[in-house]
């Protein structure tokens, strides 16, 4: 049995263990791992998530039990202090001695702390480990202003964390620009202005001379004479390989740090000692990303298990990340300096996008580039660079998209060569993915992730894996069908047709006749939505197939309480009704907040309180706002021509009419609308699923808009129509969407995927090209006629009311529910 000792239980050390066990199912290797930290290996790449609610457990790459299950001895909280190469053993600070046949150094790196006067002061931190983070969070509670030294990748990550703590955030960088290794001047300056828009102050060209403060930190002094008053400092200015062990046992180390290894990752002096990850210096280079570290781990495993070994001769340092919501990517020869090249640059300060691609002088190859603000093309561009793929006739199409015509840019996943690396974290090629799809008959993304691990690291390649899966299945002649889940081999549209034609009214009926198994959390709510869209029956009749929010007709919130939103059509509300809301909120001790959709949300209601609360609201003339459902939410309005000196139509009256028309309408996803009384568009109608904007002659109708994470402007369907025509087209549009969209697909995504796009939709809705216009209107009329307030039904039915309780054997509410006070109102205690 070969004895393996791994020093370091970080991401790369863990990956080594995982790969070795994978390649060695018979456990011919005895593995011992030393980790100096308290936690088993965790995801350092997503460390800043710790500030936004992720727990240490969330970040773990594998729980402690994984090591046991795989017969790996994990020695946590134990620092190796000596390597005895003669006797081939390591000795830890507790005196433990463990012999090895092969030794793997995966000690990683620590934070590089520049020699500034005062770094030892209280309030100065580095940003590297979970313990560092805990200390930062602890200290940060009592300060208001903090700075981060380092404007590189790591520094900006730290800045995000500090900002997430709610502190005034400053970034101090020595170089004249941010992310100097990845971005050029223009890209960096765009990133800077975007960060400043988010309230982060950026200080460039700053050489910190002194960290001031007497006991307590008070500020920074810079060489140019300026100063910055702060109370906390986080240093995240680079890494320093943890090579101290190598130094004491006579292994060579590089001048700039790191254990010197050859292309097989063996140390020069000792073929039985390997170094991988950030501690390894290969050809005088340290690789501070996780992907090359994983590749090193793989190659050492291959050597130990007698598999084919690829010498490690450098690694692509392309990277894409999201910094505080801003996409930043840098790939290949980002600066165009490795060979003569011509840059093509697109710089739009208005939309906040900077894109640069470097083209070879003969115009045939893409060498590298930079993307800031919008980086969706990164995956394809990187592939084109790495695989020397031919460029389209107008290479600018790569960053601008095809313009003027509808021709595609010709860069699709099917054009990639088999050796193209799709997942760089796990080094999975297109060929490997295609093979597994073909030979093992995999048809689902989850299966591919489980089999190949592709997409399980940073997740950046998932869209590409998905595209590949679809195109591969298509190429194999398999019909690519958007089946609902494992229990239904039908798409949502097919199921909706079945439900309608066969007059199926319950989930069980549909599952018995057209499905298999017992259903799941994917198909149950999807079918519930189809049934509600088709028959409009009270959803609480089949409460256990509803998502929790629909089951309890309220929105579940942290701590397990619910929020309550009565409908306020068009955002118009009388003082009397406002007083009712105030009284109810006061009586039940609810937190109140104005929503984005012009209504009032009351939070913190226990499940058993919901019927009582609604009884009072309904008595006062309120009805359900369906904030919990995949259904119409609100129709927002501006004040319109009644009051506004610019208004040309009565936006409020029309918004109320529209909202009441579609209230309770169940759809594949939530629906939002708005009506603006003039061209100034104060109701932001173009960001809604349907938006109506007044003109001198009537209304312009926009469809398929979206806010949220992927904002998209709605597209004009028709202009200058009267109110009745406008409603007719919304009827047809919404019903057409409800009939044909996939589950949980907003109208914007649906419209993007619709063949022919808005032009086709206009053909169907306005010109009635499918001859279904009247049918769609009839279906909508049925929904409008059969509308009933769900909460009214529940409040008046003792049997339904009885379902709203926490325990079925005790009248007590959930004893676990607890609140804090924030700004004079209640708030749930934050979760672990």
């Amino acid at each position, binding site marked *: 049995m070969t004895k393996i000792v791994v020093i370091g239980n970080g991401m790369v050390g863990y990956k080594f263990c995982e790969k070795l066990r994978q390649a060695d199912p018979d456990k011919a290797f005895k593995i011992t791992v030393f980790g100096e930290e308290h936690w088993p290996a965790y995801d350092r790449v997503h460390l800043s998530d710790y500030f936004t609610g992720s727990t240490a*457990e969330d970040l773990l790459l594998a729980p402690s039990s994984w090591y046991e299950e795989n017969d790996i001895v994990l020695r946590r909280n134990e620092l190796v202090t000596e390597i005895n190469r003669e006797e081939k053993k390591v000795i830890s600070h507790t005196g433990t001695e463990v012999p090895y046949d092969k030794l793997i150094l995966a000690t990683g790196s620590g934070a590089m702390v520049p020699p500034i006067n005062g770094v030892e002061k209280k309030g100065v931190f580095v940003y590297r480990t979970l313990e560092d983070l805990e200390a930062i969070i602890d200290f940060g509670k009592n300060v208001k202003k903090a700075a981060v030294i380092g404007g590189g990748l790591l520094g900006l990550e730290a800045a995000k964390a500090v900002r997430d703590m709610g502190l005034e955030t400053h970034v101090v960088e020595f170089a004249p620009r941010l992310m100097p290794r990845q971005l050029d001047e223009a890209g960096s300056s765009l990133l800077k202005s975007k960060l400043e828009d988010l309230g982060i102050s950026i200080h460039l060209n700053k050489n910190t001379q002194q960290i001031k403060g007497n006991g307590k930190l008070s500020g920074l002094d810079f060489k140019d004479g300026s100063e910055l008053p702060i109370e906390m400092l986080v240093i995240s200015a680079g890494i320093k390989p943890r090579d101290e062990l190598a130094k004491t046992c006579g292994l060579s180390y590089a001048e700039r740090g790191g254990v010197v290894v050859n292309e097989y990752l063996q140390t020069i002096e000792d073929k039985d000692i390997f170094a991988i990850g950030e501690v390894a210096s290969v050809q005088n280079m340290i690789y501070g990303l996780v992907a090359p570290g994983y590749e090193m781990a793989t190659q050492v495993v291959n050597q130990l298990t007698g598999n084919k070994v690829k010498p490690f001769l450098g690694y692509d340092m392309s990277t894409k990340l999201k910094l505080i919501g801003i996409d930043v990517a840098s790939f290949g020869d980002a600066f165009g300096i490795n060979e003569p090249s011509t840059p093509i640059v697109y710089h739009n300060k208005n939309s906040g996008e900077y894109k640069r691609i470097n083209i070879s002088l003969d115009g045939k190859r893409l060498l590298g580039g930079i993307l800031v603000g919008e980086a969706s093309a990164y995956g394809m561009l990187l592939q084109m660079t790495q695989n020397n793929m031919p460029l389209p006739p107008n290479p600018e199409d790569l960053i601008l998209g095809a313009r003027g015509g509808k021709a595609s840019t010709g860069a699709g996943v099917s054009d990639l060569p088999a050796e193209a690396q799709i997942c760089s974290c796990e080094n999975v090629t297109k060929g490997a993915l295609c093979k597994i799809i073909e030979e093992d008959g995999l048809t689902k993304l989850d299966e591919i992730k489980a089999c190949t691990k592709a997409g399980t690291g940073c997740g950046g390649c998932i869209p590409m894996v998905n595209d590949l899966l679809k195109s591969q299945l298509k190429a194999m002649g398999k019909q690519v069908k958007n089946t609902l889940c494992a229990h239904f081999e039908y798409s949502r549209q097919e199921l909706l047709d079945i439900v309608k034609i066969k007059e199926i009214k319950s989930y069980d009926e549909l599952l018995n006749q057209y499905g298999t198994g017992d259903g799941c959390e994917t198909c149950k709510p999807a079918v519930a939505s189809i049934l509600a869209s088709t028959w409009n029956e009270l959803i609480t009749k089949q409460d256990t197939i509803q998502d929790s929010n629909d089951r309890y007709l309220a929105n579940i919130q942290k701590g397990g309480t619910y929020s309550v939103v009565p409908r306020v059509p068009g955002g118009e509300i009388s003082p009397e009704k406002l007083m009712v809301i105030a009284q109810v909120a006061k009586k039940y001790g609810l937190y109140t907040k104005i929503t984005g959709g012009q209504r009032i949300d009351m939070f913190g209601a226990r499940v058993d309180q919901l019927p009582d609360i609604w009884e009072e609201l309904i008595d006062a003339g309120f009805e359900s706002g369906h904030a919990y459902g995949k259904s119409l939410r609100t129709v927002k309005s501006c004040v319109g021509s009644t009051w506004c000196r610019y208004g040309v139509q009565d936006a409020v009256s029309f918004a109320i009419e529209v909202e009441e028309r579609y209230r309770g309408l169940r759809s594949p996803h939530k629906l939002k609308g708005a009506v603006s009384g003039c061209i100034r568009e104060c109701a932001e109608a173009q960001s809604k699923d349907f938006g109506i904007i007044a003109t001198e002659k009537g209304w312009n109708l926009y469809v398929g808009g979206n806010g949220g994470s992927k904002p998209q402007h709605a597209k004009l369907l028709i202009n200058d129509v009267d109110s009745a025509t406008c409603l007719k087209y919304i009827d047809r549009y919404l019903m057409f969407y409800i009939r044909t969209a996939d589950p949980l697909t907003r109208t914007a995504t649906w419209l993007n995927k619709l063949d022919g796009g808005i032009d086709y939709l206009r053909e169907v809705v306005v010109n009635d090209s499918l001859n279904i216009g009247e049918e769609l209107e009839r279906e909508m009329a049925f929904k409008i006629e059969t509308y009933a307030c769900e909460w009214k039904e529940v409040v008046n039915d003792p049997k339904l009311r009885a379902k709203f309780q926490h325990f079925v054997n005790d009248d007590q509410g959930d004893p676990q529910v607890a609140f804090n006070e924030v700004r004079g109102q209640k708030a749930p205690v934050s979760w672990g």
Partner: protein
Amino acid sequence: MTTTTLLEKYKTTDHTKISTWFKAAPVSAFPENGGACVKYKDLQIAIYNFSRRGEWYACQNLCPHKMQMALSRGMIGSEKNEPKVACPFHKKTFSLQTGKNLNGDYCDIATYPVKVENGYVYVGFED
């Protein structure tokens, strides 16, 4: 109460060591193909009436992902014939037979034996 101590209160009952059959509630208290929560001492136990399979299951009401008392409100279903529940918060799914987290690496949840006698539902404990 800290996360760990709250979790530690829930221990899977060994079917061979049941010492108490707790009379939880009448069958009618549990919706078909769904769950409800019962209180036993200071424990919250989710009980599921999986009528489609003619089976009953019980587990801790506490979801180990974000420590929320919510599993009884989750949708139940099956994955390759293994009965499961999905937490309403983030759809983490757990096997109702083994308690294993089926779509992640969260710790197992405790499961308890259930029996139905004379219209009443009972949960088995070791204490």
